[in-house]
């Protein structure tokens, strides 16, 4: 609203300012990085925490929701519980505990030829990948991440390399800490990569994670990327993924959200070359008083791009599900084909689902559409299953799983899809034992 510098004034904003002054002297990075941190914090300070009049954050007012900010994690975290997440899914693992890459907990087998580097190392050396995409985003939480980032991991796949084993970037929060991590993924021309990004942490720990991932996908590359947000029930999860996709590349991304008390997951996809295809999928499962906000920005900057978005959300209890999707077709970006669909399933009368689709089209020869539906479990379908003897809980589980399946299967990776469908079934089984 107003352009004057404002004074940070919520308790969380005050704590963040104190945390920045206290830590800026020993955050990783050379002098250039330190200068960039100062500029970024300044930008954050001017904006303050996003609030309901910040259009992109209108449903997630952090000035209200973020009451306090927990302390930075201890230098050497205690032992961490190894999450029995995604059993049966074969993958390499890069483990990041409280924002620090931990090679000794990681498993890099199957990644021959792939360069894996700790972000702290890159910051000390200086690396043009850091901020290449995130620097273009006008977002207070991204600026805050740039100022405060402590670690993370950088993955580089050279041109032409087909990495068949999936790579998990496992973010583990060990307790009620503030975590600022930055990850970088570069996939060379014609290469392929399967990424699983997971977020876990203990229940009852009021952690706040601010994670930014920048990914550059080369021409003709193929990337499948599945994110599982299964943080503890008191966690705040704020993540930003910025991706640029090259000509004739294929990028498929799925976000499965079950965890955290408050989550905001934003993705920005920019088309850097023609004839690229992106599939963006989401499956949200929340209950209790959970708040889960998915924000998606697709920027067709060049002609002949195709994008498919399918976001499904299941809300129980008093949960709030939010989806904001924005497709922009730049002037001259002809023959773009963009289709966005959002579907909500309300399992309780007190749950809510808000959808805000936006199409901004500045080219005339394009095919773009969006649609949204929201409803309850179909009574007729339910009765059909009951009439065959399926117990109500089992019938509901079948219908909810079926509802989510289209989004999970949209990713087009059978092994990851199966592991994620199991997460969905487990969520439904837990729901039954709770109700």
């Amino acid at each position, binding site marked *: 609203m107003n352009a004057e510098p404002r004074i940070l004034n919520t308790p969380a904003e005050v704590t963040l300012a104190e945390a920045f002054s206290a830590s800026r002297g020993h955050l990783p990075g050379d002098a250039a990085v330190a200068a960039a941190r100062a500029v970024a914090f300044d930008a954050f300070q001017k904006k303050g925490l996003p609030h309901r009049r910040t259009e992109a954050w209108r449903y997630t007012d952090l000035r209200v929701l973020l009451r306090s900010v927990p302390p930075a994690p201890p230098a050497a975290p205690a032992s961490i519980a190894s999450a029995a997440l995604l059993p049966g899914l074969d993958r390499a693992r890069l483990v990041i505990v409280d924002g620090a890459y931990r090679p000794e907990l990681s498993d890099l087998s199957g990644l021959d030829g792939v360069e894996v580097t700790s972000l702290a190392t890159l910051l000390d050396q200086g690396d043009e990948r850091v901020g290449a995409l995130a620097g273009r985003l006008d977002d207070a939480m991204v600026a805050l991440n740039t100022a405060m980032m402590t670690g993370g991991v950088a993955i580089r796949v050279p041109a032409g390399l087909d990495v068949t084993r999936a790579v998990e970037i496992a973010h583990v929060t060990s307790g009620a800490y503030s975590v600022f991590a930055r990850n970088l993924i570069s996939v060379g021309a014609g290469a392929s990569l399967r990424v699983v990004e997971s977020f876990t942490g203990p229940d009852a720990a009021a952690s706040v994670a601010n994670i930014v991932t920048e990914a550059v996908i080369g021409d003709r590359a193929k990337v499948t990327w599945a994110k599982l947000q299964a943080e503890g029930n008191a966690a705040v999860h704020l993540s930003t993924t910025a991706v640029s996709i090259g000509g004739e590349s294929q990028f498929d991304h799925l976000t499965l959200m079950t965890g955290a008390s408050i989550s905001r997951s934003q993705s920005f996809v920019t088309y850097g070359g023609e004839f690229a295809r992106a599939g963006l999928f989401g499956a949200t499962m929340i209950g209790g008083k959970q708040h889960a906000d998915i924000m998606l920005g697709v920027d067709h900057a060049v002609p002949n791009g195709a994008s498919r978005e399918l976001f499904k959300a299941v809300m129980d209890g008093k949960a709030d599900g939010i989806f904001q999707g924005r497709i922009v077709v730049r002037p001259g970006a002809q023959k773009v084909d963009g289709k966005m669909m959002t579907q909500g399933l309300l399992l309780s009368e007190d749950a809510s689902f808000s959808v805000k689709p936006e199409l901004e089209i500045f080219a005339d020869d394009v095919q773009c559409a969006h649609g949204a539906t929201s409803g309850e479990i179909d009574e007729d379908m339910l009765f059909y299953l009951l009439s*065959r003897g399926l117990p109500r809980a089992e019938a509901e589980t079948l219908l909810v799983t079926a509802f989510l399946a289209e989004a999970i299967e949209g990713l087009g990776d059978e092994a990851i899809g199966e592991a994620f469908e199991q997460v969905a079934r487990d969520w439904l089984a837990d729901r039954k034992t709770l109700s």
Partner: protein
Amino acid sequence: MTAVRSVAAGMNGQIKMLSIKNLHASVGDREILRGVNLEVPTGQVHAIMGPNGSGKSTLSYVLAGRDGYDITDGSIVFGGEEIVETPAEERAAKGIFLAFQYPLEIPGVATMTFLKAAMNAQRKARGEAELTTPDFMRRVKVAAEKLNVTQEMLRRPLNVGFSGGEKKRNEILQMALLEPKLAILDETDSGLDIDALKTVSDGVNALRAPNRSMLVITHYQRLLDHIVPDVVHVMAAGRIVRSGGPELALELEANGYADYVGAAAA
């Protein structure tokens, strides 16, 4: 717990599979069933015919235990037990099966997954062991072949993209696999061509058994040429207004329902 009443055997000693007395059911303010009386002895096939809108589908739903109807009066005794308060899934496990007039398409639920879940759920409810996968596969294969249900259909999501005839065949497949005590077939003939009608009728006839009763709801007499009933009932305006032998169906075919529509309105 529902009390078991000793109404299973009627005056003449016949065992009653189903005994409906003075059944009234409404949706909101609207009374749709207005005092249905009907008895189906074990092993018999009864037909219910009647004009559109007379309440035939409503009766089938109420028997299967669908939510949303207020049962304001009367009783439904199945196998000697009052079931008005029994949930749909328990009625299914007790042996009531409804072949829907309009079978539901359920995207995302594989037909085989559904069949196995239904068979095992009913077995579990009756305290029987779950089927092994080979046993399940064998049963499906045998039943599917008889009904011209192809492997390709079984691989699809439940009823999704099935033609009208394929959906009806899939209903009878489920009936064959679930082996109900009482099968209610709601307009199973609608939307079928002559060949499909023959396949479906043969499938149903093969399931006629001394310990199984059927209630065949139809608008047209032609189904009853294939599935010959023991008794034909006429339903009009929410009541059974006439009962007779198979010849009653021929009479209705010749004269239409005009008399009953008039009579019911009066």
